Structures are given as C-alpha cells and as structure tokens.
C-alpha cells in the first residue's frame, strides 16, 4: 500500500514536470493556442445554434425540453473535453509513436509507457470547451430549477470521473489496435463522429445502436445515463445506477488489452 502511494506521488510529480515543460514550449506558439481555442468556441457555438434552430420548430425533443437538452449536451461535453485535454495523446500512438519509432524511447525509461504517452502532450485547446460546457450545465440547471440532494451531487461527481474513464478506455482500445495496424488516426476519427451521439437521448436510436452505445462504444455512460438520472427522467434505471461504477471496469479491460498489444510491439527500428 505504502509503495503504491509512493509510486503515485512519483508519477504525479513527473506529470507536473512534463506539464510545466509543455506550457513553456506552448507559449512559443501563442497564436496557435488562441486560434485553436477560438475555433473550438466557434464549433461549440454552432452546435448550440443548431439546437436553438431546431427548437424554433418543436416544443420538446421526444419529451426533452430545450434546457434539458442543454444540460445533456453540457454534461457530456464537460466529460468528453476534460478527457480530451489530458488523455487524448494516446490517439497519436500509431502515427507518431509506433511508426516513428519513438515508442522505443518510452520503453527504455523506468516509467509506465502508457503514462509517458499520455503525459507527452496536453490538448489545451479543449480548455474553452470544458469551461463553456461547465457553464452550460450550470445555466441549464438554473433554468430548469434543478435542486440536487447531497447524494445526487456525489452521484454526479462519481459519474463524471467514471465517464472520463469510460471515454479513456474507448480511446485506449481503439488506439491499441495500432500495435498491429500501425495506424490509430482513422479509428479515432470515426470515434469523433460517433461521439456526437452523446448529445441526444438514446431512446431516439434503434435498439441495435443503443446496444452499441452501452457496449462497444459505451458513451451513454458518459453522457445520457447520468444526465437522465439527474434530470429525473424515467427509464434505464439499472443502467443509471451502475453508471458511477462502470468506468474503472471498462478502463481495466482496456488496460489489459493495451498490455497485450504492447507485448506484441516490435520496433520499426532502423
């Protein structure tokens, strides 16, 4: 136990050093950061505009009001973009670490290779989206007049952590396939498209798609289930209850798969 805590401390310290180093090099490219942040804000504004325009045509979206849809989008967005900020770098595994041979460098160091991949970059242009989505959650909650009990607040916090792990495990599994294919970009690119499903109540989809959203690409746990529970919507009761717990399970499975992939790794060497 004591050993574990020591190890955790060590990794936290190293992450911090990486983080500082990252920001130092980042500030060299200020315009890149500013423009990246601006374009992310634009993309968020556009998806809100879409929702607003849709609601000029309808009163409720399958029983969900405009504010409830905002809450759903905000909650899912907060989880997704927080994960994207810190744990996104794994998606570069194929092209930027395996093919280039950089993975060898990581394997030589006495640090967990997965940690090194994560820590190698911070995708800070997600920051405006994280902030905007948190604001959206609070705005929507206020509009709805949401009154959460202490237990529900704990549920919300646990679900968000669990949601981040769920998303991280999806990224990890898809990226790990790069040990065989050498490429992870396309798979992740497809996930980007699929991640848009998080913004809608899953009842609207065919059952086969719903099944997909709780198993192979379980984003429903990172968005719909927690939002639906907090809003007091009917249905999917068991799913909502397990939501705060599934993240670690999914991530454990993904991590085993990563270990397996890593054992199959052979350097492109030159």
């Amino acid at each position, binding site marked *: 136990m004591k050993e574990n805590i020591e190890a955790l401390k060590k990794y936290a310290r190293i992450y911090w050093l990486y983080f500082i180093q990252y920001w130092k090099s980042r500030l060299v490219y200020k315009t890149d950061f500013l423009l990246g942040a601006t374009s992310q804000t634009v993309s968020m504004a*556009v998806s809100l505009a879409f929702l607003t325009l849709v609601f000029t045509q309808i009163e409720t979206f399958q029983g969900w009001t405009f504010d409830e849809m905002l809450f759903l989008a905000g909650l899912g967005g907060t989880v997704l973009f927080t994960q994207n900020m810190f744990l996104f770098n794994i998606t570069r595994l194929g092209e930027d670490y395996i093919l280039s041979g950089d993975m060898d460098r990581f394997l030589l160091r006495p640090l967990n290779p997965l940690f090194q991949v994560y820590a190698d970059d911070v995708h800070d242009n997600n920051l405006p989206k994280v902030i905007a989505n948190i604001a959206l959650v609070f705005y929507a909650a206020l509009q709805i007049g949401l009154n959460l009990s202490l237990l529900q607040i704990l549920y919300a916090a646990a679900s968000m952590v669990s949601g981040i792990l769920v998303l991280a495990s999806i990224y990890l599994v898809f990226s790990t396939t790069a040990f065989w294919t050498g490429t992870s970009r396309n798979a992740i*690119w497809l996930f980007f*498209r699929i991640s848009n499903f998080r913004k809608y109540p899953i009842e609207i*989809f065919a059952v086969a798609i719903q099944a997909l959203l709780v198993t192979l690409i379980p984003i429903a746990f990172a968005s719909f289930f927690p939002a639906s529970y907090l809003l007091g919507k009917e249905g999917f009761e068991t799913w909502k209850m397990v939501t705060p717990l599934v993240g670690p399970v999914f991530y454990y499975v993904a991590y085993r798969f990563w270990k397996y992939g890593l054992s199959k790794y052979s350097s492109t060497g030159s």
Partner: protein
Amino acid sequence: MKLTRYLSFTKVGLGEGLQYRGNAVAGIGSTVISLVLFYYVWKAIAASGELTVPFSTIIAYVALARVINNATSANIESWVGERVRKGTIVNELKKPASLKLQIYFYQIGRSAFKMMVRGVPAFIIGVIFLNVSIPGLSTGLLFIASLMLTLNLAIALSYMTAMLVFWTKVGWSLRMARTTLAGLFSGAMIPLYLIPENIRQVFYLTPFPSMVDSPISIYQGTAENVLQVFGTQIVWLIILLTAGELLWRKAKTKITVQGG
C-alpha cells in the same frame, strides 16, 4: 498558361489521395455514421412537432447535403500552413507556375479523388436508404453544373482563409472554424427552409448557402429560378476570388520564412 504543366499538379493531388486508401474507407465509415445520426435525430424532430415539410423530404435534403459536402471539400489551409511552417513555401514560389494555379490544380486532383471515394458512396446510400430520388437528365446536368460551382466556391473560400496563414502561421484552426461555420450556414446541418424567415435572410448574406442549399434546391426542384441560383453562385465566386487575391497581395509583401 500551359495547361499540361498545371495538370501535373492535379496528378500529384490525385496520387496523394490514392496513397491513403485507408482514409477513404474511414471516410465512408464517417459518412455512414453521420447519416445514421442525422436520420434518427431528424426522425425524432419530425415526430416531436408539426414540420412544414415531410420527414422524407428533409432526410433526402440532409443526405444530399452530405453528398455535396463530401464531394467538394477543400483543405488549402493545411497545404499552405505546412509549407509556411517549414519554410518550403519558397520552393513553391520559385516554380515557374503561379502559386494560386498550382494550388488550384492540386486541389482539383484531391477533390476529384474525394468526389469518387466519398461523394459517390454517400449518394448511393442516400438513394437506397434515404429517399433521394434519381433526377431526370436535365435536372441531373444542372445539379452537376451547380456542384462544380460549389467546388470552385469551396476552393476559393479555402484559398482565402489559407492566405491568413501567412499571418497566423497555423492552418488547422482556421480550417476548422471555416468548416463548422459553413456547416451551419450552408444547410449541411439543417435544411435552410426550416429556419425562421428573418434568420434565414441573415444566412443568405453569407456565401455558404450557395455551397450546399443552392445545388440541393436545383436537385429537389424547389428553386424558383434556376438562373438566379447560378447567378448567385457566380457572384459569390467572383467576390471570394477577389478577396483571396487581395489577401495574397498583402501576404506576399510580408512573407517571413520560419527557420533557415
């Protein structure tokens, strides 16, 4: 201008596309995912209220919008961005060929590839699953003409924002902002006829509706005056080309090359 000289740039663009065939497969996957999402979202919207247009017409519009978007994408921002960052833009300028025509012909090659591997599959999916009707010959030809104008508009717009890279040094974020804005204003996300009149008027002040809504209105026969649709597309093309040229003249005077 020597056409054969420029066609070699088209070949390069086409070849680059062929090199990354995996991307093409992923492109089809991405099209299918987007269409599935749009299908269910619009089905739910149609079930939630009384829309002025039946669901089958809306979903055909959405599918056609995807076809057009897939067939006419341009990414000159990255092309210029990469070269400005590495400094190799100088090599491009040294070639005995004008920069904008090099870019244009290269992009035509890239787009031809995209049209085949991403536009055509989206169209087939639309016809089989999403109520897209096969048009008559004259409508079909008019649509293709309008689509070609859209392609030129997309290239002109991308060229224009790419010129800003000479100031910003980065291209991807400019492109992202351009494509997301285009998604909203062009009709790619929501059929423009479902938008309240006063807001729609604002949309029409931008070049974007000419890029998606216009060819669809020809395809679906909702355009009141086909000549007017073409006229608007051409006017926007002239405006964008002029703006791109003016920006290039400004950019030329301040080209700084990174590194060295």
